[in-house]
Each structure stands twice: as C-alpha cells, then as structure tokens.
C-alpha cells in the first residue's frame, strides 16, 4: 500500500504538470512571438536568485523522478497482481470496473511512449527537418501539419484523458481521502480534469490541421534573429569602414 501512495502522489504531480503544460500551450493562440516569449519566461524562472534555466531544470528533474517512480510502482504492483491472479476459463462479468480502470496498464505505457516521442519531436528536434531551436510555434506547426503525426498526437491524448479519468479518481482512494461529504465530487473532479485536458490538448493538432494555427512556413524567431544579426553586422560593418 506504500507503493499505492507513491503512485497517487506522483500521479498528482503529473496531473499538475499536464494541466500547466496544456495551459502554457494555449500561448499558441496568442501567436508565434508570444509563444517564444512564454518559452523564454520558463527558462528565466527564478533568475533573480539562481542562474538562468536552473529552476526549469529543477522542475524537469522533479518530473523525471515523478515519472520514474510512477512507472516503477505501476510495474511492481502489476507484477504483484499478476502473480496473485488467476483467470476464469468460464469467463467473467464486470459490473463496476469501467473501460478506463481496466485499460490503465495499456493507456499508461502508451502515454509513456508518447512522452518520449513528444520530447524527441519538439524538444530535441529529431524526426523534424524543419525544427528550429527556440521557435516552439514554428515547430508545433511543422510537426502537426503532418497528418500521421497529428493522428498519433490525438490517439495519445485520448489515452491520456482515459488514464486521467480513472487515475484522478483512484488517487483519492489510494491516499485515503474519503469522506461522505466530498465523495461525489471525486468522480466529478476526475471527469472534469480529463475533459479539460482532452479538449485543450486535442485542440492543437486539430487546429493545426484545420490551418487555424499556421505560420506559413516562416519562423518569426529566426527572422528576428536574422534582423538582429543583420543590424549587428551593419554596425560592425560601419565600424570597420570607419576611417
């Protein structure tokens, strides 16, 4: 049961991340430059006290740890159940278990694989010849305008929502947060959380495909960079040609 607590607490951390990540991504609706600035804000977190990107890295390490522990407890609890369980050759009925609760061990690994792909795609720039470092808006459009990639994003995010639908409820049971007064709210919380994440995250691939989010292949960040370089070059040139 200790592992169930680990599962629930890391699950809660990951829920927080998923929500903030989705909300942050809404900057895509502000435009390319605003999205770039948002990304920079994340790197600038805490710069008053500690060097740039340290706070972001601390958050990243926290997330990696939460992921690792979540997966580890899922793996060892599943092994425990597998060794304790025997099937019914005559078949069995499910009354209370729903689709989400019975597919946790499928939706979990699927979301895990997706996270790896998603990092490789939009953080490290593999799989994407048009990747431009520091221009998330451009990269999102470049990736998601590819139909198979958009479909993969949609499938993975549906799996994530299904996972959350059970996980965000199950978490309360595992942590022992149970009181007659609040119990009906636990299921509603999970439903609402899953719905918000689903709608937010699906809007990106769908709207890129629909052409609502589009930068026409331009990169505002690169253009800005080139302008800056040009200005610097000009200034240097002026300096150089000075008598």
């Amino acid at each position: 049961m200790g592992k169930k607590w680990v599962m629930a607490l890391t699950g809660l951390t990951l829920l927080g991340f998923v929500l903030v990540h989705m909300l942050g991504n809404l900057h895509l609706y502000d435009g390319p430059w605003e999205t770039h600035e948002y990304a920079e804000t994340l790197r600038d977190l805490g710069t008053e006290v500690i060097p740039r990107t340290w706070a972001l890295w601390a958050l990243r390490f926290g997330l990696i740890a939460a992921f690792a522990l979540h997966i580890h407890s899922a793996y060892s609890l599943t092994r425990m159940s597998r060794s304790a369980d025997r099937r019914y050759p005559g078949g069995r009925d499910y009354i209370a278990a729903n689709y989400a609760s019975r597919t946790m061990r499928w939706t979990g690994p699927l979301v895990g694989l997706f996270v790896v792909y998603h990092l490789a795609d939009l953080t490290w720039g593999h799989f994407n010849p048009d990747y431009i470092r520091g221009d998330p808006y451009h990269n999102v459009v470049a990736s998601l305008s590819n139909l198979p990639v958009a479909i993969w994003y949609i499938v993975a995010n549906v799996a994530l929502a299904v996972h959350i639908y059970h996980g965000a409820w199950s978490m309360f049971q595992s942590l022992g947060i149970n009181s007659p007064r609040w119990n009906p709210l636990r299921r509603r919380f999970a439903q609402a959380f899953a719905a918000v994440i689903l709608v937010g995250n699906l809007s990106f691939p769908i709207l890129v495909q629909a052409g609502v989010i589009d930068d026409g292949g331009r990169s505002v960040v690169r253009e800005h960079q080139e302008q800056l370089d040009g200005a610097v070059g000009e200034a240097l040139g002026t300096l150089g040609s000075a008598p």
Partner: protein
Amino acid sequence: MSTTNNGALSVHLRVWRQDGPGDAGRFETYDVGDISSDASFLEMLDVLNERLTLEGREPITFESDCREGICGTCGLMINGRAHGPQKGTATCQLHMREFSDGDVITVEPWRAGSFEVIRDLAVDRTDLDRIIAAGGYISVNTGAAPDANLVPVPKEASESAFDAAACIGCGACVAACPNSAAQLFTAAKVQHLNLLPQGQPERWARTEAMVETMEQFFGSCTNHGECEEACPKEISIDFIAWTNRDYVRAKLKNRKLAGQV
C-alpha cells in the same frame, strides 16, 4: 422423481470439475430438470448431487454451512459473477427464481493465486485467516465487565464499525477482483476494530501487520470497485480508503511509539 411442481425449471449447468490441487480441471455439463424455483442454488446442487450419486457418479464438491448467508462458507462464481447475479446475496441465499427455464449456468470456484482448488468448487481460503491472525483481534486485557456506557462510542462510529463487521469472510471480493486483491476483506477486518475505542491501543500495529500480511498473498488494489459489487454484505470501498490512510499513519506512528522518531 416427483411430479412437476409449479414454477419448476430445467437448467443446463457447466460445472468446473477438478480432482485435486494438482489436476488441470475441466468443465462438465449437466442437465438438471425439475427444479423448484423456490430452491436455493445450493439446494439445486444438492438435488443434482443426489441424482449423480444414484447414478453411481461422483457428486460435485462444494462448500456450505449455515445456508442463511451469515457464515461465509459458501461461494461460487456463477455466470462470471461472484455469488451470482443477485446483488448483496451469498450463494446460499440465491434462489433459482433468479434464473429462467433453459438457462445455461456456468459454475466455477473462486479463482486467485492463493485460493488453491481443493476439489471441484471448494477452494483453500487459509490466507484470509492468516490476515486475521496478523492482527484482527483485540488482545488488551479488558478486566471485569465495565459499567454500561462507561466507554462512550459515537453513534456514527458504531454504525460504521457494524457495517465493516458485517464481513463474513467469504472471499467474494478476492474472487471478483481483477487483481485478486484482498483489500475489501482486509479493510473490513481492520476498520471494524479501528473505528471503536476498544480497537485503539493496537490500531497502528494491527493496520501495519494485517496490510503487510495481505500483500504477501494477494494482488494490489487498482480501485475498480468490483469487490463492493460482489460483496454479499455490500461493504463499501470507503473502508479501503480509510485503511490506506491508517496504513501510512501507522508507518509513522509505530516508530514513534517505539521511541524511534
């Protein structure tokens, strides 16, 4: 054979037969005719066994004792549901009127890694007893009988404790759980003591010992809620949540009581 009575029915049974723990087991089919709809499921099996015996065949082994739903001895997986289709009912209290004439009924023993089949439909549920032995009791000396109402118990707590104490230990929760977890059984046995004043001195030791013993033999709860549906006493999974809470508190408090924090 008796004359056909009103509401008599015929059913086709697919029953799990297994000669012993090591045997692979198989389904065998029996046509059971002329069964009163007022017969209980176990009485129907009694009739079948009587007929099998008269034919010189081996009767089906199954367990039962009180046959009034309070001892927890009986328990069969009927058509894929622990204790059959009727909610809040042990197998012995399930009646043939819940079935229709001509139904095919599949009967299996409880299945879980720690519930070894002894023979046919009887399984070994000793591991549930091991959980009780780990702490499902109160061993503090209570002395002579105290005056009535000397120990005040809030009505809500006593009601809750009674709900948990309704557990008859049949093992339907384990049988119905896709993980073969014994959380509902353990939680009921932990909470009916933890909720009352008499259970307080051993509360933390009990919770830790019973949960950890459970985890040696059974699977891990994933909060499907199947146990609550299968339970003949309709015990709520709220008790599982409370036991999860008590377990973590126990992990902290036991060390504190031992002076190690």
